[in-house]
């Protein structure tokens, strides 16, 4: 499991626009670099990031080899109801990780 750092406000007011920040530990190996033995290092990147709010997609991103290691993604979201945010990162070599956080409308 890769480590993640997620900033999700614990409570929000109805209709509020909140900023969500995500950071995940990942080498984002481009596939264009050579290793110590001179051989090319095979590509190992996160290809896709999705955020579902109560199973409804609210943010998606495609990632490419030029994106730095440990990708940091932020986005904003209008919250009308309490629910569960599910963050999923998917990538090469079968990488897949999902983290969930609860958002409560006060």
């Amino acid at each position: 499991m890769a480590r993640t750092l997620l900033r999700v406000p614990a409570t929000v007011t109805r209709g509020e626009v909140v900023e969500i920040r995500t950071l995940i530990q990942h080498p984002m190996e481009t596939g264009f670099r050579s290793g110590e033995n001179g051989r090319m290092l095979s590509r190992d990147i996160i290809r896709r990031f999705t955020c579902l709010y109560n199973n409804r997609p609210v943010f998606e991103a495609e990632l490419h080899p030029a994106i730095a290691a440990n990708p940091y993604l932020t986005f904003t979201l209008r919250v009308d109801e309490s629910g569960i945010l599910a963050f999923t990162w998917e990538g090469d070599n079968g990488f897949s990780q999902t983290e969930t956080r609860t958002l409560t409308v006060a």
Partner: protein
Amino acid sequence: MRQLAAAALAALTLGAAPRSGFETMTPELQAMQRDDLANPGMLYVADGEALWAQEGCGSCHAVAAMRGVAARYPALDAASQTPIDLTDRIAQCREARQGKPALPPEAAPMLALAAFVAHQSRGMPLQPDAQLEGARRQGEALFRERRGQLNLSCAQCHDDNAGRKLAGSTIPEGHANGYPLYRLEWQGLGSLQRRLRNCIAGVRSEPYPPGAPEYVALEAYLAARARGLVVESPAVRP
């Protein structure tokens, strides 16, 4: 008159407090370092925390007792009477006291453990070990020694030209108060020895072999030179 000017200049340079590399970074990078949920170094601190528990460090040491440790390293190792840095100390604990196989000094687990221990001292002023006078003097001599094909010393950049530009980058004063740190250029966490190696290779000189006492001597001098700055580990640098 000339004497007076020289004295004033000396007072100015001696009186100038060290400035952390943090202060010359862009506001965006400063924000990244300040925010624990944006600072990628915190990922490695979390790794270190898990390793601390897994490797049984906690059976001898309370985490709270690690507060301030990184601020006083490099320190004199009582048994061997040689200066050692924080990584050496962790290695010694692991190999001599726990009887576990050695970790490569710059492999991910060692960096993570060092980051976790150093993080406990964040915000504390550096307190260089007073017993390291010899190492410090050797380190200062190395710092001022011209090296490599470019025939440059550390001091020529980091004392004489700090704040000016080297290509597009601002030359920092070269204070080592945030290691292990997350360098964007490295796309990962790295040690002070890695930084020193990079600088030495940068002036086209042969780096000292891994684990050479010269590194610890330089670290001891850098700690004294940065006296008064606070520990920022894990810092973020460009």
